[in-house]
């Protein structure tokens, strides 16, 4: 079916400045062409698309990235105290000089360009493949665009327990960089890998992370997205989770003009676990934060959790679109989904679309979505004990976010991010 003209024109305009990366092996070129064909067939999102009704894709569609002022943080960088393998990207381009040597016991790690140039490389079974699977039933055309055009990224294969986390650090040096990054990760059977991400990356960022967790593997992901107020980001994670495997991901977002974090997880092996959580703090009408999650259960006795908490003030907008799909035969599924917002004034809004679609009869799935203000009774109780109003509101705000923060397993990482929440509240931005 031909695309509507407006959509076709918008897609063409966005693609015009882009060119397909050269130097790939035949399989990689084919994967990129397939992805480009997907973009052509789907067209890039428009405001009227069902999954873009709450987040306006205009800033993601413009041929050039909207300018975003550089931001100099006065905080220590996230995860500073954590022993980790650092991979630094500046404006979306890997910087070997600032990065560690890409070798670590139990890991095979290289650049996307390197992996895709090899005639035989394991990543061909993952690159563009999980993204393509994740296009149904909901289209994610920006992710297909990324597969076609992204030249930068890392490719990681974990074959045992990684000695330390791989930390992807995204710095900025210009106000107009438009970055496309594509990471490919495979956690082999019984292996264990943690990936950290932090930083704004670019004025406009589009990432895809494809994560294939084999039977009995474990993948942990913790990220924070940069305090730059004007940055824009569309991130996509496509995960495939095998038997007895674990997938856990947490995202902290403070500030940013536009953040759309999409997570698509397919649980294909029995007894697997997939948790996705996020906490966000947004201040001002220029803040738009969107979590769009789709978890498919296609195996027995699997557990999934979605825990999202948003604190919004001064006209900020938070969005949650979360779905649990339980396929026929996925018995004993345990699915949990909670999305909550704390609205600190009348101007902020939270738009939530929780969805359950269940085709098995022996499952336990629950979901809840709430919007609320600060509990006045609790506030008075704290103040009556001498806690000043602002401090009391902060304490209750942290309490509201606690359930999401508790999803971070590693206590050192959790404490690092909790400290950032406290600092954000103290600064009031």
């Amino acid at each position, binding site marked *: 079916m031909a695309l509507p003209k407006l959509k076709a024109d918008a897609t063409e305009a966005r693609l015009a400045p882009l060119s397909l990366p050269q130097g790939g092996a035949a399989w990689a070129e084919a994967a990129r062409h397939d992805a480009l064909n997907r973009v052509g067939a789907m067209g890039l999102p428009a405001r009227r698309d069902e999954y873009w009704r709450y987040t306006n894709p205009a800033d993601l569609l413009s041929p050039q990235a909207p300018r975003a002022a550089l931001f100099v943080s006065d905080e220590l960088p996230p995860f500073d105290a954590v022993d980790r393998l650092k991979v630094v990207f500046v404006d979306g381009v890997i910087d070997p000089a600032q990065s560690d040597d890409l070798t670590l016991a139990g890991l095979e790690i290289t650049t996307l360009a390197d992996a895709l140039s090899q005639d035989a490389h394991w990543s061909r079974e993952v690159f563009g493949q999980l993204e393509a699977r994740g296009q149904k039933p909901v289209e994610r055309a920006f992710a297909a665009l990324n597969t076609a055009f992204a030249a930068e990224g890392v490719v990681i294969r974990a074959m045992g327990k990684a000695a330390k986390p791989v930390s992807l650090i995204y710095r900025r040096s210009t106000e107009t960089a438009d970055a496309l990054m594509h990471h490919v990760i495979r956690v082999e059977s019984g292996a264990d890998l943690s990936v950290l991400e932090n930083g704004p990356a670019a004025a406009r960022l589009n990432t895809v992370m494809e994560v294939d967790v084999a039977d009995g593997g474990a993948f942990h992901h913790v990220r924070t997205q940069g305090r730059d107020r004007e940055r824009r980001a569309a991130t996509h994670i496509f995960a495939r989770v095998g038997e007895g495997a674990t997938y856990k991901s947490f995202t902290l977002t403070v500030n940013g003009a536009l953040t759309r974090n999409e997570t698509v997880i397919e649980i294909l092996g029995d007894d697997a676990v997939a948790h996705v959580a996020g906490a966000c703090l947004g201040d001002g009408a220029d803040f738009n934060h969107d979590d769009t999650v789709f978890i498919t259960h296609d195996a027995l006795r699997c557990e999934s959790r979605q825990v999202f908490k948003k604190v919004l003030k001064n006209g900020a907008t938070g969005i949650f679109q979360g779905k649990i799909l339980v396929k026929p035969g996925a018995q004993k599924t345990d699915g949990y989904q909670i999305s909550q917002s704390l609205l600190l004034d009348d101007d902020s809004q939270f738009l939530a679309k929780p969805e359950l679609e269940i085709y098995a009869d022996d499952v336990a799935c629950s979901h809840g979505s709430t919007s609320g203000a600060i509990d006045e*009774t609790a506030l008075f109780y704290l103040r009556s004990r001498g806690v000043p109003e602002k401090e009391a509101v902060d*304490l209750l705000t942290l309490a509201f976010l606690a359930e999401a923060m508790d999803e971070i397993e590693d206590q050192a990482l959790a404490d690092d991010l909790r400290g950032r929440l406290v600092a954000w509240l103290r600064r009031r931005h």
Partner: protein
Amino acid sequence: MLTINNLHAELEEEGKQILKGVDLVVEPGKVHAIMGPNGSGKSTLSYILAGRDGYAVTEGSATLDGVDLLEMAPEERAAAGLFLAFQYPVEIPGVGNMTFLRTALNAQRKAQGQEELSAGDFLKFVREKAKTLKIDAEMLKRPVNVGFSGGEKKRNEILQMQVLEPKMCILDETDSGLDVDAMKLVAEGVNGLRDGKRSFLVITHYQRLLDHIQPDVVHIMANGRIIRTGGPELALEVENNGYADLLAEAN
């Protein structure tokens, strides 16, 4: 210590008058009790003194050591030395009891120009007090009042009182929902704070609590006013005869 003069107040939204001219003076070191039937305005009086939203004072005054309470924010009243033990202590999920106590104490110390206590010093300070109230380490770690029994919640109120060391303590029906043993424990906690300088205003329905916390003065409140003031014997009179006679007399 606490001086309440011709205090009139109404519910802000409904405009319904609750307090219709309360006069009360609590001297330093004294324990005053307020008794009265349901709906007489006892709890409203305690909320207004502590600074809860939703009430409008239309006439009269309330001062603590000569300082106007009604002009102050709730946290300023606390820093000035006022403490209200709630009838229904509030559950605050996500805030640890220890964090709560330490934040409160340090906020008050800061307001009073004192140095904040370190985590270690604070822990020692609280553990000692918690022990006498039979509050264990587990209860201190749990979120404020979440999953606490009625008795545990009231003991936690008394712990806060002991930690914050206020000069004027108001206890709003602290005996409600307590069995005899829990009431003794709470009363001991309160009595331990009687030092000849600190004052107490104990609001209760029943004489029972006053067996354990001996009042110097007993007031009967009805229909938004203090209608009788007397010694401890007044509480016994209520216990034996109910409020009917007193109310009839007042009318």
